[in-house]
């Protein structure tokens, strides 16, 4: 991992199109400004991990559940 030290309002550039800027530092909270092309997806990592994990759990269902769901007729809902 490349490690760079930056001060407030300083930035780094990644490639031609991406810029990260330190906007404020308050205790252990750092506010970053990110400029990137629209097609670059930017996510808080923990949110992305939570969705990966949820997908993993969601995919682990049994045939039994399928049969139970089939019994839930629309008009009962």
């Amino acid at each position, binding site marked *: 991992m490349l490690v760079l030290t930056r001060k407030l309002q300083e930035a780094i550039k990644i490639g031609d199109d991406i810029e990260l800027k330190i906007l404020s530092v308050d205790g252990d909270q750092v506010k970053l400004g990110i400029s990137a092309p*629209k*097609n670059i*997806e*930017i*996510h*808080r990592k923990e*949110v*992305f991990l*939570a*969705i*990966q*994990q*949820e*997908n*993993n*759990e*969601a*995919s682990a*269902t049994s*045939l039994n*559940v*399928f049969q*139970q*769901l*089939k*019994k*839930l*007729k*629309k008009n*009962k*809902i």
Partner: protein
Amino acid sequence: MILHTKFEEKIEINEADILHFEHGLPGFEDEKQFVLLPMEGTPFSTLQSVSTKDLAFFTTNPFLFFKTYDFEIQESVQEQLKIIEESDVHVQVILTIQEPLDKSTANLQAPVVINVKENLAKQVVLTESRYKTRHELSESKLVRQEG
């Protein structure tokens, strides 16, 4: 073509019905082709992987269960999925099934957005969102388990 599915052995599908997920789904980045198979008589569907028999998700139309659910589809996603009109869009959310069934949850933070005209799809991660990965279906007081 014949597809082997997780829940129903073999089914016949039309290749034109295959949904293309360019980047797969979070956690399943290599799975790029799915079919959405409605479970007749229920509000549920299965999102079945074309290449992996044992990979399938239960999904539903979120608007049936969460009347106030709404989100904006980012411009970049609109472009990626070639969405031109709102009527091209169909939304499903992935369910995490629990027992009893009314403890099951819907992932409202990462809806599956489908352009039904182009059959392009993506599980979108909503960034600044009031929605989470687990919303109980019973929150909406709509699911009642049949005895």
